[in-house]
């Protein structure tokens, strides 16, 4: 029991989530194939992986919506199958799509959920109003949710999820399909929620997002955890960033690649675009080591010295593609488009969830 949050039943300081060999199969497809996770209470834990990796299926099992076919999972010490109701009392879920009723207004949705979580008629209305105000949705309170913008939907969704002050909040791809600004706003909300002591399990396709929010990250692919650790550990294995370079002259790309490989002492990837290449840069773990930006500028200087014109360059976080390349030494099997930042990914996500649902009904 923490003295700051007397209403929270924090339990015997155990982890919020503990799974061992968790398995879920849909027909021949082992959607989740032996997942071991330990999520410390009070933190944001990122589950990073491409579409169809098994993220949503894992979350659904932990939220008692799907029965595992093998292995065990405990949430705050409660078995997700045998003590499902005890788990439900502690968790809340924001699914990939609006988990609110689109036909109802914002107020009606929140009052409905407040009533279902045991608030009295008046208390439910008050709580709904407070939440709508806190989430900046007062003006839209009387409108049906189907008329909300993407960012507003996410807000009402998260508002509904924290209505009963959950100890553990599942956020399944909370920013997929959102524009950058709405995404930042969702991140701010998540930070505010975590600051109050709620544990968050976040699934995402973006390394960037996991990096912004999570303290520990598990990388998941084809139903298995292929890497797990703190952000620092994961980055050390992947490299802090990547230099994306576009040349004016496609003929000189081989030469540029050789130069970059020499200066940066790392792998260089030739992009589908004949003038583009990408090099991973490490963050130089040792105190005397160079920072990624320093290395990158040195590499660019080398290119200039060799007389290779650079049209454009960017130093960025490694993409999910690059993470997978680094972790598995093989590129992602899913189409590259799915790993692009928000926007382009929406269609791919739909297909993913469609598959999960279609298979779940069998």
């Amino acid at each position, binding site marked *: 029991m923490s003295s700051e*949050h007397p*209403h929270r039943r924090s339990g015997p300081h155990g982890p919020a989530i503990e799974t061992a060999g968790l398995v879920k199969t849909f027909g021949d497809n082992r959607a989740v194939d032996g997942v071991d996770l330990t999520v410390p209470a009070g933190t944001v834990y990122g589950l990073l992986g491409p579409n169809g990796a098994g993220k949503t299926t894992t979350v659904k099992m932990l*939220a*008692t*919506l799907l029965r595992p076919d093998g292995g065990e999972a405990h949430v705050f010490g409660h078995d997700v199958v045998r003590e499902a*109701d*005890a788990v*439900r*009392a502690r968790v*809340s*879920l924001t*699914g*990939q*799509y*609006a*988990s*609110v*009723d*689109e*036909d*109802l207004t914002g107020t009606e949705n929140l009052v409905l959920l407040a*009533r*279902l*979580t*045991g*608030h*009295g008629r008046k*208390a439910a209305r008050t*709580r709904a109003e*407070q*939440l709508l*105000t*806190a*989430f*900046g*949705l*007062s003006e839209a309170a009387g409108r*049906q949710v189907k008329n909300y*913008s993407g*960012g507003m939907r996410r*807000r009402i969704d998260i508002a509904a*999820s*924290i209505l009963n*002050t959950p100890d553990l909040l599942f956020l399944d791809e909370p920013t997929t399909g959102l*524009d*950058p*600004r*709405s995404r*930042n*706003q969702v991140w*701010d*909300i998540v930070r*505010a*929620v975590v600051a*109050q*002591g*709620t544990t968050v399990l976040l699934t995402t396709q973006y390394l960037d997002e996991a990096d912004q929010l999570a303290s520990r990250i598990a990388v998941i692919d084809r139903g298995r955890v292929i890497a797990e650790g703190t952000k620092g550990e994961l980055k050390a294995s992947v490299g802090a960033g990547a230099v994306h370079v576009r040349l004016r002259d496609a003929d000189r790309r081989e030469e540029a690649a050789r130069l970059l490989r020499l200066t940066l002492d790392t792998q260089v990837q030739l992009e589908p675009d004949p003038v583009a290449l990408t090099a991973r840069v490490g963050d130089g773990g040792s105190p005397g080591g160079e920072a990624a930006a320093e290395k990158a500028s040195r590499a660019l200087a080398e290119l200039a010295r060799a007389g290779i014109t650079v049209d454009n360059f960017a130093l960025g976080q490694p993409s999910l593609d690059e993470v997978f390349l680094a972790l598995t030494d093989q590129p992602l099997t899913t189409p590259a488009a799915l790993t692009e930042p928000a926007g382009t990914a929406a269609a791919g996500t739909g297909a993913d969830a469609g598959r999960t*649902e279609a298979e*779940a*009904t069998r």
Partner: protein
Amino acid sequence: MSTTTPTETQDLAPVRAESLAELLVSTERPRRPSALSTSLTFGWRAVLKIKHVPEQLFDVTAFPVMMVLMYTYLFGGALAGSPREYIQYLLPGILVMSVVMITMYTGVSVNTDIEKGVFDRFRSLPIWRPSAMVGYLLGDALRYAMASAVMLAVGLVLGFRPDSAVGVLLGVVLLLVFSFAFSWVWTMFGLLLRTEKSVMGVSMMMLFPLTFLSDIFVEPETMPGWLQAFVNNNPITHLASAVRGLMDGARPSAEIAWTLGWAGVLVAVFGPVTMRLYSRK
């Protein structure tokens, strides 16, 4: 709060982190609500849906009026000498038929609703599991009551003269009870079948023989023996006879008992099957 990229055309008010923090800290978690309370809350949800899309009341207003008018004037002269005489026999039956036919929309709405994300939320709440389904049926009971009122009003205009208001009321209550029980068949199909169309198809295939092969239009005595065997054991026949008896001032205890018995069996069989499917969805 980051406001550096003004890409979203619709400007949202900022999230207030402080008030958010207050909300998360200050509240005691309320006690787990009762099964009755959650069922009624889901019933309220159904009523809200009617409020937002009132067009969906078409099936409980225009459709029943059409049924009464059509069958009264189509068969009245041939079967009972005149529409006015026929409606005395027909109205309770056509009331049963219309309401029982409307029950199939429960399956359709369950089917279209269940795929939506909000059900994941409902199913992850620590509440009495069947309450979401019971809520649908409660909302529908309200619709059936409306349909009954509309048809009785039209019937009275056309010359239907029940024995007493109490009898009419009891008849409607019995009809609502049976419809509530019968709807569990549709909730099951709503969860079992993949598309709205298939739910409609299956419902129609069951409803047509059930309602037509009953004593709603004509007395079973005129039918061939093998058909009588079916008609006399059809739950809809029991229900129609009971409602007709009640509205006519009789005490059809046997028919009422049969109707309630069928209602019990329907809930006992299709309730658990529905809940099994609901949990596995």
